[in-house]
């Protein structure tokens, strides 16, 4: 370390050689190198994702060429005669997701309202933390509880109760073995409810206090203020949470596979066994004999990818819209 000189020394006014050497040192020193290295790693993510889509497209080619658009509407799933159609699985995925939403949305929204409007902050934070832990539970463990707890419950208690009360409806007709669309829907509902709660709660907390105060100042009850003013304000974000949860439900594999009954049929009854896209891939991928079979399964994977891509995209748009624009006018 040179010590400071006592007098200012007049240097020659052209420092170019020094500057060039300094420039070179900077390049070697690492800022540019660091920039390039980090950029390469960031770009690799784009590469991986593109490769994923490409592989899905490539490996489903045989099936796409054999069946074309017919794949989406055909109900046949026949590995022996190699006729494959996606409709039963799309149906099963849609039905289980719909059932799960029907259960999870009211439950989740109600819980979110409790956590954002009623509970004191520290209780709300603790409960939110616990609910977040639910989201961390692995899918296969939900499946485990599904098989050994929900399925027997469905067979002995829930099923008969629903049949007794609503047996005249098509959706509750038919024999009840415990596995099926309804059971899968219930298990899925528990799995997606934490997402609805956590996103909705956050969105509800951002609703300005003045909104609530205005409603209550007009003589509304707490509930009326919440339901008629606060929740509509957060409407877009809550919708976003629904799409997010839906995207999760659609892609859920293990828990569903373990309780859905694995039957590629389209039935109206919720008690009937069914099949989802994720479940059939999980069950039959390693058994697939013949490349057309495998290709059909991979095409199903492509379908699943597209569905989740769209749902996640919508979810992100909606959540982004709430962050930007505040609320919609009621």
């Amino acid at each position: 370390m040179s010590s400071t000189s006592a007098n200012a020394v007049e240097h020659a006014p052209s420092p170019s050689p020094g500057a060039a050497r300094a420039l070179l040192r900077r390049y070697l020193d690492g800022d540019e190198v660091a920039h390039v290295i980090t950029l390469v790693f960031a770009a690799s993510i784009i590469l991986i994702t593109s490769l994923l889509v490409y592989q899905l497209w490539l490996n489903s080619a045989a099936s796409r060429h054999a069946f074309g658009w017919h794949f989406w509407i055909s109900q046949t799933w026949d590995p022996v005669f190699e006729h494959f159609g996606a409709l039963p699985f799309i149906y099963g995925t849609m039905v289980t997701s719909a059932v799960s939403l029907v259960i999870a949305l009211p439950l989740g929204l109600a819980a979110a309202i409790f956590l954002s409007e009623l509970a004191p902050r520290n209780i709300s934070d603790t409960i939110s933390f616990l609910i977040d832990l639910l989201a961390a539970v692995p899918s296969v463990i939900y499946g485990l509880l599904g098989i050994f707890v929900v399925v027997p419950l469905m067979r002995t208690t829930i099923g008969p109760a629903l049949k007794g009360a609503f047996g005249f409806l098509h959706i509750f007709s038919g024999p009840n073995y415990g596995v099926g669309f309804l059971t899968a829907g219930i298990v899925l509902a528990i799995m997606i409810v934490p997402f609805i709660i956590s996103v909705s709660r956050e969105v509800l907390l951002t609703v300005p206090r003045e909104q609530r105060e205005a409603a209550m100042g007009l003589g509304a009850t707490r509930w009326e203020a919440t339901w008629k003013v606060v929740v509509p304000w957060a409407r877009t974000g809550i919708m976003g949470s629904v799409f997010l949860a839906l995207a999760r439900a659609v892609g859920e594999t293990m828990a569903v596979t373990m309780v859905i009954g694995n039957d590629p049929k389209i039935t109206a009854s919720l008690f009937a066994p069914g099949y989802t896209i994720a479940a059939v891939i999980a069950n039959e991928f390693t058994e697939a004999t013949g490349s057309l079979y495998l290709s059909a399964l991979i095409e199903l994977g492509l379908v699943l990818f597209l569905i989740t891509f769209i749902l996640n995209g919508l979810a992100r748009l909606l959540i982004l819209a709430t962050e930007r624009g505040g609320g919609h006018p009621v």
Partner: protein
Amino acid sequence: MMRIRLIWRKSLNVVMLTLTGVAAFAVVSVLFMILGYLIYNGGKSLNWAFFTQLPKPVGETGGGMANAIVGSMKLLVLAALMGLPVGLIAGVYLAEFGGRTFAFIVRYTTDLLNGVPSIVMGIFAYSLVVLPMKHFSTWAGGVALGIMVIPITLRATEEFLHSVPNSLREGAMALGASKWKTIATVILPAAKGGIITGMLLSLARVAGETAPLLFTAFGNQFWSPGFNQPIASLPVMIYTYAIAPYEDWHRQAWAAGLVLLGLVLLANVGTRLALSRGGGSRSV
């Protein structure tokens, strides 16, 4: 008339608000129910043999899941080695270097990757690794899990690097530190608590994943030396045993479930607690 309407509104108020509380507690109680069932059913099947023995052949009782426990660990190590550096360094890029459009594309793609169903990730790893190798392997499982680790790690890295106040960057640069030195010696250490938490959480998440392993790592009755062979893992064992018709296997599935959930919850709770307590004032 108004009086009756008012009573109705007030009662509705109480009923609905109570229902919301019931909903919240119902959801929370599910968590405790899950824990309860696992502890009860898994606890009584958990013994020393579970941790030390290999699975017995079909039909015989007893045995354990030692190979699955080790298998899960090997897969996690692979996933960590492959995915954590990518997430970390890409996160550094986004937080410290990124240009507007490219960074946006990277973030969007990462979110996309995060939303890919895990079974599709399994298909991807299958086509990348299993097809060329012509057999299942630990590598394939590691690749599938490794890719899944990237988005969570990246988001945590970016978020916590951003949270480091600019005054620290200025202080370091005013002393003559170049940009990368500032990042390496001041900013990353300052953010390291949150980043490590993100990494641990991402590992905890993939540790419980089953679907991506079904046709990559596949499964193994025995030990799996090296990385070229199929390998057992806890989640896949749980699945296989749970759907089988053997009572003894169900017992073991519960035990495995308890172990898996225990580890996952421990990681989640532990890291979150450490993060909230650590704050920013500890020396790095």
